[in-house]
């Protein structure tokens, strides 16, 4: 599904290149649940952003389902992202001015899904995540775990083939964390490919494969 070949990404600092990703090659099969581990600054988030096409890279090749992403224009890349990828953040990043329902609905609006269909999809997912009673609340009225549930529900609403999660449980306690991980496991069993970046060995264990990053390269596969 994803093929990264010799990816380099750097920033210039005082005339010298500081590598964020350094000759990174990675192959991910459809249906995998990959955990990326590594210390802070090892390049986990950068890698996820590159995979998500939210961020560019300086050298190398990236194929997503056979499509050469490095050759595509920004617009086309955005549309591939919009069709296939759901992104989950450590800090949830819900829209403060929108209710739970509206937050989950927003990606559908950008995909121009019809109103009736939208209602059905959102109702479905609210049900699945057991947050029907909270649909009219605003994010600040929810606990962290609940907010992250909404974040995941929002990522899943477009039925993505791939979920990218950047330390999804970083702000949660261990009980909440386990619940989220179980949910990921379930989703993975339903056929969704998942890539998560995490600090926790415990969380990583939920995955089918774990890689370790060090200074922008894979140190352990």
């Amino acid at each position, binding site marked *: 599904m994803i093929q990264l070949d010799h990816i380099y990404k750097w920033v210039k600092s005082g005339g010298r290149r500081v590598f964020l990703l350094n000759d990174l090659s990675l192959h991910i099969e459809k249906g995998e649940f990959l955990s990326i581990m590594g210390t802070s600054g090892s390049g986990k*988030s950068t890698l996820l*952003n590159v995979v*998500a096409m*939210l*961020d560019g890279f300086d050298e190398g090749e990236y194929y997503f389902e056979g499509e050469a992403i490095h050759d595509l224009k920004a*617009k086309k890349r*955005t549309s591939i*992202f*919009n069709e296939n990828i759901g*992104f989950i*953040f450590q*800090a949830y*990043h*819900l*829209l*403060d*001015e*929108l209710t739970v329902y*509206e937050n989950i*609905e*927003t*990606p559908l*609006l*950008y*995909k*121009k899904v019809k109103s009736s269909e939208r209602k059905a999809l959102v109702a479905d997912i609210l049900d699945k995540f057991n947050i029907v009673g909270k649909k009219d609340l605003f994010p600040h009225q929810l606990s962290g775990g609940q907010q992250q549930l909404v974040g995941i529900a*929002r990522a899943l609403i*477009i039925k993505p083939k791939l979920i990218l999660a950047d330390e999804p449980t970083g702000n949660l306690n261990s009980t909440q964390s386990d619940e989220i991980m179980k949910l990921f496991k379930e989703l993975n069993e339903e056929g969704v490919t998942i890539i998560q970046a995490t600090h926790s060995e415990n969380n990583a264990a939920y995955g089918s494969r774990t890689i370790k990053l060090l200074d922008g390269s894979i140190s352990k596969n």
Partner: protein
Amino acid sequence: MLKNYFKIALRSLGKGKTYTTINILGLAAGMASFIIVLLALNYELSYDTWDPKLEQVYKVSMRFQDEIQEATPAPLASLLAEKHPNIEAATSMQGTGDYEVLISSGQKSIYQKGFASSDSLFLEVFPYQLIHGDRATALNVPNSVIISEELAKTLFGDSNPMGETIKVFNAVEGVVTGVIKVPETPSHRNVHLVMRDPYEQQNFFWNNHSYDTYIKLKEPVAEADLEEDLNTIYFEERIKSDKQQGQASGSSNHTVLFTDVVPNIQNFSKYGNSNIKTISILFILAILLLFTGAINFSNLTIAKSISRAKEVGIRKTLGSGRRNLIFQFMSETALQCSISLIIALIIVIISLPFINTSLNLDLNFWGQNSAELLLQLGICLAVITFLSGIYPSLYLSRLNPVKVLKGDISGGKKGLGLRNVLLTFQFIVTAFFIVAIFGVNKQLDYLQNSDKGFVDEQVLRIEATQATREQGFAQTRRSLLSIPGVRSVAKTTTVPGDKIADSSTVNFNYKGDQIRMGSVKVSTDYFETLQVPLVEGRFFNESYADQNTRNAIINETAARKLNVTNPIGETISFGGCDEGDVQIVGVVKDINVHGFEFAIKPAVYTIENKACMYQSGGAILVKLKSDQVQATITAIGEQWKSIEPNFPIRYSFIDANFQQLFSTYYRLQKILTFFGSIAILISIMGLFALTAFIIKQRNKEIGIRKVLGANVKTITALIGKDFLVLVCIASLISIPISAWALNKWLNDFAYQTSIEWWAYAGVTIVVILLALITVSIQTVHAAASKPVKSLRTE
């Protein structure tokens, strides 16, 4: 999608209530002023657009070198109509314009503006709609009269006016043969009564230059071609034949005709003054106001963008494209602008009656062209939305989601340059208005307090017929003087303070030279009545020479023009006159007759018309004793019934007339003060909100600095410094511009106040103080709050 945007827009508006309110109200104030000026502009431009056929009606006037002559010879109209194949009809007419003519019917007598006399073709040229009567024949009968619907109502109420007799000026009788509908738009020539000219035959000769000529074309043509054709006809028929008779002066310099299409006469006439200049300037000022409102918008949105940045980031990861985001932010701006527009409209509708009375205007919001107005407002809304929303939208939609979500947003630094430029622009406008208000006030003060050269208090100006003024004057004077409250009675052909006072000059012969001076006919007591001080020689007395135009009194300007050390005893004579010399017996102080826009003209005062020139017109002046003014006026009114039994008395006070002369300037003063206040309000509100934002952003920094030992003063300086520099720059840019504009305006006056450098310095200080106070209110508050609070929030 729209619903979603709308929701988020409303909620984010609700979030920062203060800023939203400032945004919306500031813009509403700017919009309201803009709409009012727009209404005024529309009104001005609607002149003579009441019928599309007017596009083919032209006024024909004459020009001899620089001299414009709107009055044309009586036969010109019929000559042009006969010779030019494209002219459908031409009419020659005379009108009194704003002069009120006595009109009576049965017992009812009223003074009415808009009297005109014309030949039978008036209705063929002007497309007035007739309510009663037949267009083709209405003016055919001698002494036939057509009147306006309005006048018919006043004179005859609801009964049918057709066939009724109307008496004009208590002299000429006419029969109503038609009633015209009053046009829906204002006209350069408001017509309420048109009479078939009773003296048409006897006045029909070429040397009678006292008619206005209008022509109506069959087919529209280019104006230049029309003028050329008319001039060819005029040259062939008139100038050539005059030359053959040996009457023409110079060979190439001869009178030419020029035309003005009727809808253009009010505002775009080829050689006339017009209101449109003032209104256009006001329009530009109103647009500036609108911009300052829009700037608040842009500035506050950029400042706010930090809090919106996260939203942008999230939306992008949720699949929003740039276009979606631009659309979202633009529609948010559009929503706010629409709210502003609605508030502005409410302000306009509520305040319009007050504005109309205080500015003496006749503006109407629900006028007939409301569709056009709606379109204009729509365009205005679109432009303002675009201007206030485009930069923030582009800026926000460009943000990189990865960076933004990481919290790496460089505090809106990118918008800082533009924000500073916009803020500076706002304060340039503000300073401009302050200078303008100051300058106009100073000039008006100067005019108020300037010495007119005579005492204008308690001087009554009484309108009188020629008979009363001339042959009957001695009798009238005696009769008025018999009233105890009357101090003196005089007459003059040039009444001080009149809107249309005779300002022409004529040639006087002096020592073989021709000198142009104004000639004023007065009566013996004129100088006493106006308390004009004598400089040299003596006033008029009852001597034969004084009373028969053999002696003259001149003013100081005339004395200077004669260029002689002692003008007393010098002789002058009216140009081209062999009826005798006039000896100068006195010099009086200059008196200001025409207001202060014009320099005082050299004047030669004489009594009676016994030396060639015949001058009449003007009015009778009565100086009242200071006690019991009202009783005296009542007594004069009673007396007047025996002096002019057929004409109800019409009087005014000269000092009030002078105030009227200044009324346009008072109007300008009011408008400027109004605009200026709004400009100040908008920019202060903007600065206030902006400071609030900056403080919110730098809250933590302020806390840390306080912990490190900064005091209120240093923190106020820290925040205020940047703004003050901008305001100083704005003042420095604004002052030359406003000084230039002010001088340009002052140049319209012959008598100008001087505006010293310290005045500009004062304005700069005022503007800086305003800004300083605005910034300080909040910084002091922020600096005084406990640092623990702001630091704890992290």
